[in-house]
């Protein structure tokens, strides 16, 4: 009954207020731990900068001022948040089923390639048809690429950790083949595809910025996935498989089926993110189209405790960090790869702080 972390107020409050207190404290605790993890990671990042002879204070000033400078810079953050939220939300579903899909990067490339192939092929198609078609192509290709790992797990017991990572490398190499071979724009100096037909471009929602409808789709899908995971019977079954496959089997829940559902859903979200990147931002396919969104999505999901609604916020946070790191690189020549370090520390502090939570979960022990 009594809560060890908030013991004092609970002890004096009458029973009726106890529920109210818990209702207020629980969301606070949910936010406090990720916030502490992020603060710790940022502190480590600043220490790393200072330790290696950079002026950490000036860097932070530049980041804070520059990132939220004007409408354009905020639109750029939302533009970066779009793939991060989509991938993060998808990985929430996979991780809740204990499927360690590390292959979002490859699924992103598969979606981007499929969206390009569709987006350069048709003429005279209306945007009302072409835009959904490109999105569908990306989502299906991402799901199909992820399904390979799912099938290998079910039929050959091959660890999805290894297979999804191998599929990442293969997707990257295949993209290199596509942009130097079948999809290559002969007129371009660098290996890249032709530009997408204009009707396939994602409609922009905040001209003159590049912000497109992808961010709205990402937000809607986050809510949909939350409802699916936590408010539907299918989502419940999926989580049971994630917690205990044996219990699931005993309850008549199909384990292979839920593995496929979770890995294909996460793959389709990553593929959709790839389609948005092509049809909303770059308009072309080239070799290094993702700056590691697929891997960053892992940190997005874990920081959100695998909750799709939480992934909206952690996706936004990592987008701000990414914008800030770009600014650091331009203004202070600080290597942008620092964000990877921060992502790693965020994950470690999340698991570290999770240990602190255990006593408050089991007050009676």
């Amino acid at each position, binding site marked *: 009954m009594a809560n060890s972390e908030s013991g004092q107020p609970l002890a004096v409050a009458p029973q009726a207020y106890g529920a109210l207190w818990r209702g207020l404290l629980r969301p606070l605790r949910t936010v406090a731990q990720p916030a502490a993890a992020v603060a710790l990671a940022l502190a480590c990042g600043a220490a790393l900068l200072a330790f290696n002879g950079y002026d950490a204070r000036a860097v932070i000033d530049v980041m804070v001022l520059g990132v939220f400078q004007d409408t354009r810079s905020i639109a750029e953050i939302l533009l970066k948040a779009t793939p991060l939220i989509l991938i993060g939300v998808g990985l929430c579903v996979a991780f809740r089923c204990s499927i360690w899909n590390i292959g979002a990067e490859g699924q992103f490339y598969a979606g981007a390639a499929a969206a390009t192939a569709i987006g350069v092929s048709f003429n005279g198609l209306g945007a009302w048809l072409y835009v959904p078609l490109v999105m569908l192509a990306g989502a299906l290709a991402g799901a199909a690429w992820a399904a390979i790992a799912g099938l290998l797990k079910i039929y050959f017991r091959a660890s999805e950790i290894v297979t999804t990572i191998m599929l990442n490398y293969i997707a990257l190499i295949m993209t290199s083949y596509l942009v130097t071979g079948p999809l290559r724009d002969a007129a371009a100096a660098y290996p890249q595809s032709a530009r997408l037909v204009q009707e396939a471009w994602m409609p922009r929602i905040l001209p003159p910025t590049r912000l497109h409808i992808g961010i709205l789709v990402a937000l809607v899908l986050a809510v949909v996935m939350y409802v699916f995971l936590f408010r539907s019977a299918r989502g419940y079954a999926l989580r049971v498989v994630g917690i205990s496959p044996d219990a699931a089997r005993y309850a008549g829940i199909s384990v292979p089926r839920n593995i496929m559902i979770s890995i294909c859903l996460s793959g389709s979200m990553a593929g959709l993110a790839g389609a948005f990147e092509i049809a909303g931002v770059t308009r072309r396919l080239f070799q290094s189209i993702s700056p590691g969104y697929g891997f960053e999505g892992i940190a997005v999901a874990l920081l959100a405790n695998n909750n799709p609604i939480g992934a909206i916020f952690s996706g936004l946070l990592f987008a701000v960090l990414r914008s800030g790191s770009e600014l650091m690189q331009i203004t202070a020549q600080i*290597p942008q790869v620092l964000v*990877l370090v921060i992502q790693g520390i965020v994950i470690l502090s999340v698991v570290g702080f999770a240990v602190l939570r255990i006593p408050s979960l089991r007050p009676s022990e």
Partner: protein
Amino acid sequence: MEDLASLSFLAATIAASWRLAAPLIFASIGEVFSERAGVLNIGLEGTMLAGAFAGFAAAFTSGSILFGVAAAIAAGVLVGLLFAFFTITIKADQIVVGAAINLLGLGLTAFLFRSYFPSAGKGIDIAKPVHLPWLSDLPFFGEALFRQNAFVYSTLPVAALAVFVLYRTSFGLTLRAVGEHPKAVDVAGRSVALYRYGAVLICSALAALGGAFLTLAHSNQFVEGISSGRGFIALAVVVFARWSPIGAFVVSLLFGVFYALQLQLQAQPVHFLPYQLFQALPYLMTIAALIFVRNRVGTPSMLGVAYKKS
């Protein structure tokens, strides 16, 4: 004449396979130790990068390869301590911590490299081939096989030592018991955590050594993400090798063949096949290897499970 040419081609391929297998041999034998003790360390890739960078940085500044090797091992032990603290002491999920180690390894090495070695200019003098008396003078195979650098030769004693430690010492016996039945070890009065720390540190040190091979004996430069998936391939090697150190050595050699073929086929392009197909060869073969071993006899029963005293 034709036969002689193909024979020397074969000898050259075998030699290249052994050389290219070296980083996999170190990393996968290390992972055998860790997994035999019940700890799934998917942070091999990040650990290899740490070793590759530390080795390069130390050798570049000091001019001594030996110093580079020492720095790489030290870096590996540090990464191992971090991984062990989170997975064994805090009992956090081994996969999540491993993923974080990979991100940290990739990010930190790239950050430090760009901060301290801004112009990718001069590299280091990599380890030179060592002439072995008698063996190196054998016709064809001697010339090809036994003109390797010390890293490559050392894979043999490392594998032998791994077998000895795992199967012929009390430490090895207890280590394997920790992965199968930790409670028994605990009841016998030995610390499960201590043995797991030992296994993880051996694993990380060897993985870092495998990474150091890449900068000290293969390429003379550090490049971001230079391990290019070898840490993950080593994970599959261990499964294919059924958690045996000798198996890890042999399977790594097999993957070395794929790397060697990849290099040779890229050098002599086949016109109707895109070169990317050969680039993808090691990754495709990793998936094929996992398909091939459906039967998982030999999996340590406590693999991936944190030990909680009750």
